[in-house]
């Protein structure tokens, strides 16, 4: 195998961007696995793509525009039923800062 593409420290950084947390042994395993997958990704470097345009979508459509009219919005109670925690007809979440209780 070639030299490592990604370090454990970088994997921890990516995890924080993705809002994921790993314990030490998982972090180690993910680093090994991601490194071997990134090695496959790096084979793309063999291909000269200098004058090639990227393709981000294969749809033939441009944009579908519709009238700016409110539609299908009156479902608050149905939607709230799926919320893990609700209070006063709103979804309840913990405080943004530590220690700010109820």
């Amino acid at each position: 195998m070639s030299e490592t593409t990604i370090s454990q420290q970088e994997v921890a950084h990516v995890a924080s961007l993705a809002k994921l947390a790993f314990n030490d042994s998982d972090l180690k395993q993910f680093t090994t696995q991601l490194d071997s997958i990134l090695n496959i990704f790096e084979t793309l470097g063999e291909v000269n793509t200098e004058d090639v345009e990227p393709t981000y979508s294969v749809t033939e459509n441009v944009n579908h525009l519709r009238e700016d009219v409110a539609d299908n919005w009156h479902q608050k109670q149905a939607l709230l039923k799926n919320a893990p925690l609700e209070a006063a007809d709103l979804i309840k979440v913990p405080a943004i800062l530590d220690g700010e209780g109820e």
Partner: protein
Amino acid sequence: MTINFFDNDLTSLHEQLINKDITAVDLAQSTLDNIDKTDDKLNAFITTNPEEALVQAKKIDEQSDFTNILSGLPVALKDNLATNGIQTTGASRILENFKPVYDATVVDKLNTVGAISVGKTNMDEFAMGGSTETSYYKTTTNAWDQTKVPGGSSGGSAAAVAGGLVPFALGSDTGGSIRQPAAFNGIVGLKPTYGRVSRWGLFAMASSLDQVGPFTRTVKDNALVLNTIAGFDAKDSTSSTREVPDFTSKLTGDVKGLKIAVPKEYFGEGIDPKVAKTVKAAIAQLEALGAIVDEVSLPHTKYGVAAYYIIMSSEASSNLQRYDGVRYGFRADDVKNLEDLYIKTRSEGFGDEVKRRIMLGTFSLSAGAYDAFFKKAAKIRTLLIEDFNKVFADYDVIVGPTAPTVAYGLGEEIDDPTAMYLADVLTIPVNLAGLPGLSVNAGFVDGLPVGLQIIGKPFDEATVYQTGYAFEQASRLFEQLPDIAKQY
């Protein structure tokens, strides 16, 4: 009375309903009986809704309007298709107990014509996997051998059809998730052209690649289901405004003069020689029927896996940001603050494969890696599309194997993500190029089905079906049944 779905195709069931030889309630009850008899072995379903199915079937019988071919017929739906009021998990813990407040467009279309949804099928978590083993809920088995994987990610839908539990099912295909399980279970599965079927209400994994498609036992059945689910949808801006043809129009059995391309790269390294031999024999049969067969080259095939896993994981990492424990699904306990809620919910709610792909995608899109990974992959995607365009300038369809191997043992591959990814080499170029791809049974290796993949030009599903139908009718492999059929 119990109706056997092995002996009755959709047309036969439809005619019996019209003639009142059977009722929609008979069909729904037969499906529920089938599930009772065999789903403890196959584990195809995460959720079943027997009461609602029977109520719905009774309603259809009372209306007695069997205009559409699917009216009154039972269907199984992959658990990443939103069903109003019925638990839809995507096989993830993070959506435990989630009940959508709307139906996916394809579900709505089936409901409108009176198809009866009997339940939600198991899958890899958020459709990430090729064996249905990354499901949080259960392990589905192969209809032909219950020690083998059913393939994935739509393994539950494939096993439910191949095991004779339901006459048809829907799945989704981002990199092979309909075609490969169809191949592993010896049935017919189509990934339609990108834009042919609405994605609205399909849990987004990689939005530029995802398509919904049918699983059936025969090619004609498959075309009939596509007739109903295809078409423009104002709720999906990538769905096509093109007219929907009758996809059964070319099912004559005739392929005389049809120009078939066989890419040499599809028989290269990593393809099981027995699989290659079976597929080559199937191609020879098409040639014997009068098709013109030539070897061609799709030179960038070997870069497909890398390009796909960068693009798919990048899109998925963005799409899966919505799962944060705030509005629906699982929420972690004992959190200090909102940030902690996000992190703990996602870390406890997602399985390892989903985390791996979120990590790969987040990395590929990150500032230092964007050009070398995400943008590079998008350029390789262009080259893969150009490969196909060159071949399609001279040929009607491209054929080869669907998967490099037959179904492998449960637990055998799951700990080696790299090997799992490389096994998608034959199906993912089709998604990257947005083409239609069909898998039909090509024969058996050691008692397990082998898939013949037929790839068509954009929006030319009719010719893909024409090719598959000609082979199917000549080989009549669909008459061979798995042992599990003896349980009915």
